[in-house]
């Protein structure tokens, strides 16, 4: 168990999730694009109280 997890921690030290960072950046851009497109429709329809 201990040796396994030590290996694991080493492996993790070498592994940099670069692809994940790129994928996440694209996801965040998509989130903003889609959310704000609905938000703009809301604002264009004016005050509602």
């Amino acid at each position, binding site marked *: 168990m201990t040796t396994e997890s030590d290996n694991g921690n080493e492996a*993790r030290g070498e592994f*940099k*999730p670069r692809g*994940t*960072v790129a994928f*996440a950046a694209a996801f*965040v851009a998509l*989130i*903003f694009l889609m*959310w*704000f497109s609905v*938000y703009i429709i*809301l*604002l264009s*329809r*004016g*005050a*509602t*109280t």
Partner: protein
Amino acid sequence: MSTEAGGEKVRMHIDPTERAWIRVAIVVLVIFALAITVAGFMLGIQVPTEEQRVDPRTIGDAAPWAAPAADEEGDPRIQELVPGEKYAVYIIAKMWLFAPSQVPTPESGIEIPAGAEVTFYVTSTDVQHGFKVQNTNVNFMAVPGEVSTLTTEFDEPGTYDFICTEYCGTGHAAMFGSITITE
């Protein structure tokens, strides 16, 4: 983020990229929280709030929701508060029509001049309904026992449909009305 475990202090290990992502996630969510706060409390785009409780069994016959008598002049359900500027419309939603409404039978037409502010007061006398004025932010539930209300300004002349957006029985798909905005 640390605690005692088996006499040894164990700290939670978080990968640096994941730590950065946590920050990004929080920033993203804070931006949305700010955006809805700005729209709600600075630009005045609000959701309905508590208005008034009523008895769904009798409210359809009570003023100002009751239909006008045959000899009555005008319609008490469409009130001109400030001519050309402020109007109030009282609507009953019931299986499967809105009253007043121009359709399906022009029981009474709703006509408002462009640029005026209109407040809708809607309640149901039977099951739950929805009330959505197309191409505006007016969109709420009509719940028996409660009055729903929102105010909006109609700038563009034309016909605006208001449709029932909650399942209210077999006739639901045909339940709609419209409001005419004149020049």
